[in-house]
């Protein structure tokens, strides 16, 4: 137990330093632009945690973010770069709302059905990318991103065409789902809904996934495709399955947002959650429990960032800047490690550290995505 605690404390330092540096640099940027960074950050903090209502709002945003990031973490662990969270989220939401509006079934049956539909919707959308990756070696970064744009237009077409609410005064939105299907609000006067519980269950689910055979295989495929192949793992099959699960989770995030917050389809429902979830997953080092923490943190950043723009006139884009910087600093931590190891080597000349350094170098090479060629 003590060791786990020590490890998690050790694990939390690099992302913390990265975020701190990102905030510092963001502050410097504001300083140059003539904005007082302390005022801006205070406003951001108040916006995220200033009252019970604000905290609830932050959690509401954290729910889809955490689920999306869980999905992304599964794909990234296998070194499949699924950046199509937005599209899979959208298609999952479309499937779920479509089922909810179409079938006249009792709610007790219909609600689980919408849940399954969301998973399948997301999974199929991401599955396209997984399939063409496995079959044709089409770069999944590009295909998943393209599928994001296609899903965006698909949704726009649906809410302005076939699925438009006929009583909606021409607003681009679908009909509302019936009240019995909506996730109950947990805290009176806020939007905090039962989806939180779903997210917790999914976190545990993904935690268990990494302890299952399939999770283990997925990890091996991510570490080294050739080794995986030699040890009898069907790499292409794992790629498709991984992508399927990853995207299915994204679909569930869409379900959560539909049944917990909006209760209907609107334009651009994913609103950039997908990109943010990538940052969340990376800063958590793809660890499910870490994702909860970093998901909550970035949800706070977004909630607070909106307040900051409204109150202090600091552009919300600053939040994006901080995200980008945070990733850059996290992946740069090897520099620190190298520098530290060099120091150790010159101080006491034992060869083992030198070996460690060169071995870590080799690992980087075999791990690189080029091995999927």
């Amino acid at each position, binding site marked *: 137990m003590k060791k786990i605690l020590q490890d998690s404390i050790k694990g939390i330092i690099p992302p913390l330093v990265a975020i701190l540096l990102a905030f510092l640099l963001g502050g410097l940027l504001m300083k140059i632009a003539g904005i007082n960074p302390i005022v801006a950050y205070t406003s951001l903090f108040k916006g995220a945690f200033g009252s019970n209502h604000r905290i609830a709002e932050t959690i509401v945003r954290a729910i889809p973010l955490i689920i999306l990031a869980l999905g992304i973490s599964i794909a990234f662990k296998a070194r499949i770069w699924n950046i199509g969270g937005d599209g899979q989220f959208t298609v999952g939401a479309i499937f779920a709302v479509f089922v909810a509006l179409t079938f006249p079934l009792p709610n007790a049956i219909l609600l689980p059905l919408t849940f399954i539909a969301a998973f399948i919707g997301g999974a199929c959308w991401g599955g396209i990318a997984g399939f063409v990756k496995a079959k044709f070696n*089409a*770069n999944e970064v590009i295909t998943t*991103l393209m599928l994001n744009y296609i899903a965006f237009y698909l949704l726009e077409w649906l809410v302005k065409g076939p699925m438009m609410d006929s009583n909606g005064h021409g607003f681009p939105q679908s009909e509302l789902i019936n009240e019995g299907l909506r996730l109950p609000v947990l805290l009176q006067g806020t939007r905090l809904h039962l989806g939180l519980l779903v997210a917790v269950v999914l976190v545990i689910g993904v935690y268990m996934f990494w302890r299952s055979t399939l999770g283990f295989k997925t990890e091996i495929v991510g570490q080294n495709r050739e080794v995986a192949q030699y040890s009898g793992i069907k790499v292409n099959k794992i790629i498709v399955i991984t992508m399927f699960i990853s995207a299915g989770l994204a679909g569930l995030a869409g379900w959560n947002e539909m049944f917990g917050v909006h209760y209907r389809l609107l334009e651009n429902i994913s609103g950039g959650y997908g990109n943010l979830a990538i940052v969340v997953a990376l800063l958590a080092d793809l660890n499910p429990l870490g994702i909860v923490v970093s998901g909550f943190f970035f949800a706070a950043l977004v909630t607070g960032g909106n307040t900051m723009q409204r109150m202090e006139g600091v552009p919300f884009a*600053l939040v994006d800047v901080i995200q980008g910087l945070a*990733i*850059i600093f996290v992946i740069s931590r090897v520099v620190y490690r190298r520098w530290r190891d060099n120091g150790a080597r010159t101080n006491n000349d034992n060869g083992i550290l030198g070996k460690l350094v060169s071995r870590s170098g080799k690992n980087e090479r075999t791990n690189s995505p080029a091995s999927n060629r």
Partner: protein
Amino acid sequence: MSVPILLPAIGEIFTQRSGILNLGLEGVILMGALGGFVGTYYSGSLWVGVMLAVAFGMLFSVIMAVLSVTIRANQVIAGLALTILGAGLSTFLFRIIFGIKKLPPSIEPFQAIKIPVLSEIPILGPVLFQHNILVYLTFVLVIVSAIVLEKTTFGLKVRAVGEHPQAADSKGINVYLIRYICVIIGGAFAGLGGAFLSIGYMNTFLDQMSAGRGFIAVAVVIFARWNPYRALGGAFVFGLASALQLRLQAVGVPIPHQFLLALPYILTILVLISVSKKAEFPKAFTLPYNRGER
């Protein structure tokens, strides 16, 4: 319409030939678009805008070069970081400079130049010879790039570094330097592509105005098998898809216009499916080089 895809694609050919995958083109294009607009707005000269766009693109891509060459970070993640940072930073700076709520300011963009006689040719004339000067410049750059890559010592060094960095190093080629140069060349081209968006095709800067073109450009590079002339062909197809979409919309074809807008993205996936299996990537593609390691 092909140009904002073609320019980044040409630059990316240099980058990838040297063994680096820059997936952050999207961010670089946006920074270039911002630079082009700001430069033009404050100097009143479109060419100052172009130069600032190229400078922004080069400076911004230095981050990618440091991450991929010196730090040897995972290039996919580095590219994503650059995309997110570029989108955020360009929007942030634009809002800081021009305010949050005001109507977007605009400039007088590059005007189309009709080349006498040639532009009179039916069909081909309007397609090829009635563009603004950036388009003609792009054609020149395609040819120059092809010559540099295939016929010069520098081009040979780039290819050597991308195929076999160890061998290149043993011949006295500075692998790190070549890769830095290639990533920065890529940044210059992407920056210019961004300038084309903000001061050639439109007359202002818009958030996310690159709309995925950075990623489409990478697809074009694979389609072109790292050859600038074939990239010209590939980008032209995308330009055609965009033009077709506008034309069909104008005519009023009974296809939902969202479908037409999605067309370039669908096309990208189809292109990737058809070419990826056969594509021969540079041997050392996405492999960081470490001199101390054998």
